[in-house]
């Protein structure tokens, strides 16, 4: 018991530093995913012909392949193949972000479809172009409706980020693994890591709930 506590006490700061890296990777991937997901959602709902088909293909690809396979494919394969020499951390953010983009597009698309039909029509009737209507009428409403979906997406990304250890990104999981293979205290160390992820999940969900309250419009979406 004494020995376990010593190991945990000495490993905690090292693993906690990994939590910082985990958070940076997740937040980076969230924003990259947002940048990819919103245009994808618009392309899927308002796009025509090949634009729409391309968007559908992207979503199908990234939602149909496990993160682990995508990490291997891009880091060891495609990135090197096109001549990019990326750090494990950058590759992690890129792959998680591209994947999250596919999922976030589904969140935003769902929100756009949940808006009353009349919104788009009314905007066009006022003389807005389709792009204007999407940008200033549809998206401000759809993005507000998407917040609960993002809270979910954050917790998924956080958990998926634990897979980045296979590339050697020194986040929580990788550091725990590093200590565990040297001290043979697998159980207490991984329980500590699990507790950190658990804490980060609830912290993030709390932050997003705060954001939701901030941007809420009184009486809006309460019946939905």
């Amino acid at each position: 018991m004494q020995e376990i506590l010593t190991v945990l006490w000495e490993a905690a700061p090292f693993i906690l530093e990994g939590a910082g890296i985990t958070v940076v990777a997740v937040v980076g991937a969230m924003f990259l995913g947002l940048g990819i997901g919103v245009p994808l959602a618009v392309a899927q709902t308002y796009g025509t012909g090949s634009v729409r088909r391309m968007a559908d293909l992207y979503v199908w690809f990234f939602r149909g392949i496990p993160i682990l396979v995508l990490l291997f494919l891009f880091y060891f394969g495609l990135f090197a193949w096109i001549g990019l020499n990326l750090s494990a951390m950058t590759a992690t953010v890129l792959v998680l972000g591209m994947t999250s983009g596919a999922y976030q597009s589904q969140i935003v698309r769902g929100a756009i479809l949940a808006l009353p039909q009349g919104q788009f029509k009314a905007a066009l009737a006022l003389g807005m172009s389709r792009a204007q209507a999407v940008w200033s009428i549809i998206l401000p409403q759809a993005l507000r409706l998407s917040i609960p979906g993002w809270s979910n997406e954050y917790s998924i990304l956080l958990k998926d980020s634990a897979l980045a250890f296979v590339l050697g990104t020194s986040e929580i999981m990788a550091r725990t693994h590093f200590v565990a293979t040297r001290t043979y205290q697998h159980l207490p160390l991984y329980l500590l890591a699990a507790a950190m992820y658990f804490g980060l999940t609830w912290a993030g969900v709390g932050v997003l709930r705060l954001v939701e309250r901030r941007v809420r419009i009184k009486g809006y979406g309460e019946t939905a």
Partner: protein
Amino acid sequence: MSWMPAEEVEFFLHRLIPALNDGLLVTLALIVPSSLFGLAGGIVVGSLRVYGGALWGRLAGAYAAIFRGTPLVIQLVILYFGLPGLGITLSPYAAAVIGFTLCSAAYHSEYVRGGLRAVRRGQLLAAQALGFSPWKAVVWIVIPQAVRKALPGCGNELIYLIKYSSLAYVVTCFELTGQAKIIASESFRFSEVFFVAGLYYLIMVTVASKFLQWIESRLKIPGFGTL
């Protein structure tokens, strides 16, 4: 395949594809029991969360929160590398199936709970008024409605399980992803190998989601929404 050099054909047909097919069998052997046990566990946990009363309801809720709030890979590693510390040793395959089952039950319970909650109180009242016993009312009125409400969520969970079965590789259970990793490391053809492995998953996921869509459309009732 005359457009391909002979050694390429040799690699794809006689190295990669057979190895991935072996992996595929292991993947299926992981998915099938995990999804069935996971769904059964999810129904039990979800029902406890709704009808279990204070103690059981809270225990089931805590179970779901813990398994949904921590990464699956850590759960697997704890089962495989952690439990021997307590004198419990699992084979890679057993650790993977137990881990997938426990995690998937937690997610299923969320949808089962939502489905049960979504059945309006008046439905039960009306059944009682017609003389249904509580048990019959649950079997004939609540469950048919709850199943339809929970189906899309539970179906999604199956799709997730197909993809997350790749994590079995971390506990040295060599399924599709593990086989791909071995071949890729030996041949240094990372792009091709993982792209083909990705196609295997894409096909499984697409077939499963088409199948789920078909079931959903079979059970569809006009004006009866999902969660």
